[in-house]
């Protein structure tokens, strides 16, 4: 049992617990905060997997920007605790469906043989430089497209959320 494995198990457990809190807690603000925790766990996971740049991006963009946005909207709408509880039937269905799906996926990945690991690559795997190298050469076109996408998103959200 290496340190890495133990770390992984801890992070995984925390991620699962906080995710459950997201979907189960009645107060939406607590849900949002639980999600932030879950996102941090995912960032830790990324670090464990050697994707340093992505981990930082996860914290900055997801936890730092998107969740802030969520909280803003929650506050703006002054959302209270869930007023009417979900009917028992729907809860059962959701639980069963999700449970089945989760079990299927986990079962699949744990029992099927997966492709062989590749040889260790360049030293700077997962670094800013490596990511930048990939983004600006091979995937340059997609990169440029995302800038258009962000522009559209900005304009779109302003237009939609405007007071009529």
């Amino acid at each position, binding site marked *: 049992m290496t340190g890495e494995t133990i770390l992984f198990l801890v992070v995984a457990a925390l991620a699962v617990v906080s995710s459950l809190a997201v979907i189960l807690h009645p107060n939406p603000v607590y849900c949002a905060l639980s999600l932030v925790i879950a996102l941090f766990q995912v960032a830790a996971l990324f670090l464990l997997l050697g994707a340093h740049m992505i981990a930082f991006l996860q914290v900055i963009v997801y936890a730092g920007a998107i969740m802030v946005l969520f909280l803003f909207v929650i506050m703006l709408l002054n959302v209270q605790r869930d007023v009417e509880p979900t009917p028992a039937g729907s809860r059962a*269905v959701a639980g069963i469906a999700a449970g089945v799906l989760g079990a*299927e996926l986990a*079962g*699949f990945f744990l029992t099927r043989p997966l492709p062989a690991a590749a040889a260790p690559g360049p030293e700077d795997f997962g670094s800013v430089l490596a990511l930048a190298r990939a983004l600006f050469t091979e995937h340059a076109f997609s990169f440029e497209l995302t800038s258009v996408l962000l522009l559209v998103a900005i304009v779109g959200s302003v237009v939609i959320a405007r007071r009529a």
Partner: protein
Amino acid sequence: MLRWILIFPLLGVFFHTFLGYRLGRRAVSIVGPAVVGLSFLVTVGVVIRLFQLGPDGALVDRMFPWIVAGRVDVWATLRLDALSAVMTLIVTGVGFLIHVYSAGYMARDEDYARYFLYLNLFMLSMLILVLADSILLFFVGWEGVGLCSYLLIGFWYSEDQNAAAGKKAFIVNRIGDAGFLLGFMLLFWTLGREGVWTLDFAGFREHANLLTPGVATAAALLLFVGATGKSAQIPLYVWLPDAMAGPTPVSALIHAATMVTAGVYMIARMHFLYDLAPAALAVVASIGAATAVFAATIGLVQNDLKKVLAYSTVSQLGYMFLAMGVGAYASGIFHLMTHAFFKGLLFLGAGSVIHGMSGEQDIRKMGGLREKMPTTFLTFAIACAAIAGVPPFSGFFSKDAILFQAFASEHGHPVLWAMGLAGAVLTAFYMFRLLFLTFFGQTRADHHTAGHVHESPPSMTVPLMVLAALSVAGGWVGLPAGWLWGDRFAEFLAPVLGEPHHGHHELALEYGLMAVSIVAAGTGIAIAYLFYFHSPELPARVAASFRRGYQLLLEKYRVDELYDATVVRWTFGLANFFWKLVDVAVIDGTVNGVAMFIRQQSRTWRLLQTGNVQNYALTFMLGAIVVVAFFLLR
């Protein structure tokens, strides 16, 4: 060049359709007759050219390729030979006079443009019919005149019975047309089996020798069925008396001078076929003679002015078919021509009388019109003399020629002659009965109508006078052999219709029969004089003594009732069956059923659209489960 004879009426049709009501009554009443007048002038021109070509000449105008498919190559072609020249002159000439008359007669009618539209359309169709070079184009004209007949009979369609009369004409004609179609298809197919694929009259004529007598007879009889429909012979004549519901100039043009003669023309055109089928000729002659007498007997007792003339037309058409049936094709066409003159005149005169009598058509309410309507009276009297066969009027020569041929021709028979003679006596009688009751004696109309009686305007009286002149002199082109210039008419038509069947005729026989004809006419007139001029109480007494017979004649032998009880009822029953069962239950059921099914399905399946996003998400999730399961279990 020939196509211009058709183009003018066609232009008239377009004019009346689009500009008629816009440009007003005046314009329409000028354009309508004018286009026919122009057609007439062109006709005269081309006929003169035809004369210059000599006896076997013909003018042909191949207009455009029409049906070119497989082994059939039919162009729309017009042909002017001697026969079609005579017909075209009659159609355009008499047609023009009637158009002019119509302008006066229909002067106060609301639907003046529609009237001239139909009338011009009719002229176009009739001219296509007489000028066609192929039987297919001929049939186009045949159908066209049938359509126009329907449109014009039912012209005042707001009255139900006028519309019904129009329908009756069209439907009865259709029955005849079925026979006609079968007839020429039989010819086409039979010749085709021999390798000759043609629909032209010339083609049929050239290869007629390829037909067996059986096929020739069958085809001839089938074509004749069409003729009985169009030309109102037994058993399909019943529409003609009802057709009097239309305006009187229509009756003059269509049901006297032109359309009803189409059947006679058809037999003349296809005479080579009938020459090959003596049995068919016998049928034609028998039906013609029978119709001549039958219709004449009905005409004896009718009290409506136009109905008498209608039955008279049926009867005279019978004479034409009698002529065709004994092989005297030229005589039949001769009578067609003289009949166009005097019957057209009779109808136009009747129109003038009805116009002067403010719409009254019952002759029992007329009388004494001689002084008040002198021109109408004089021309009407001339026409009566012509139709009765009084020499030297036109009808005498044509009718006498027919009677002679009926007796002496190789296809003739004394019985046929006797029937024709009987018909002649009856014709003379009922026509002069009409003359006496309408124009002589004291007026029997009520005060109001009597006060309004007036002669018609020149637009109506001038055509009467022209036709009267033709009724007098029109027969002089066909004098019996040996008299002055002889039978120029038959000579003119000989290249097309063959030499007149002279048979073994002795001059004495001919003169003898002629004398008998004259006596017959005189007898009829004398009896009419006795009954309606000298002793007016006689008709009522005779009718009382023969009450059952009189009733039968008055009710036109109840033929319509017979048809109704048998054919019509059965047809309605069949139609009802097809309507209720096939149309409503099966067809509507299927179509509606499909629609109902779809509606029901959509009602069911649309319940999936709950509008609730989470339901949709659930569906996604289930789909994902299935997909992963698939990979899991592989």
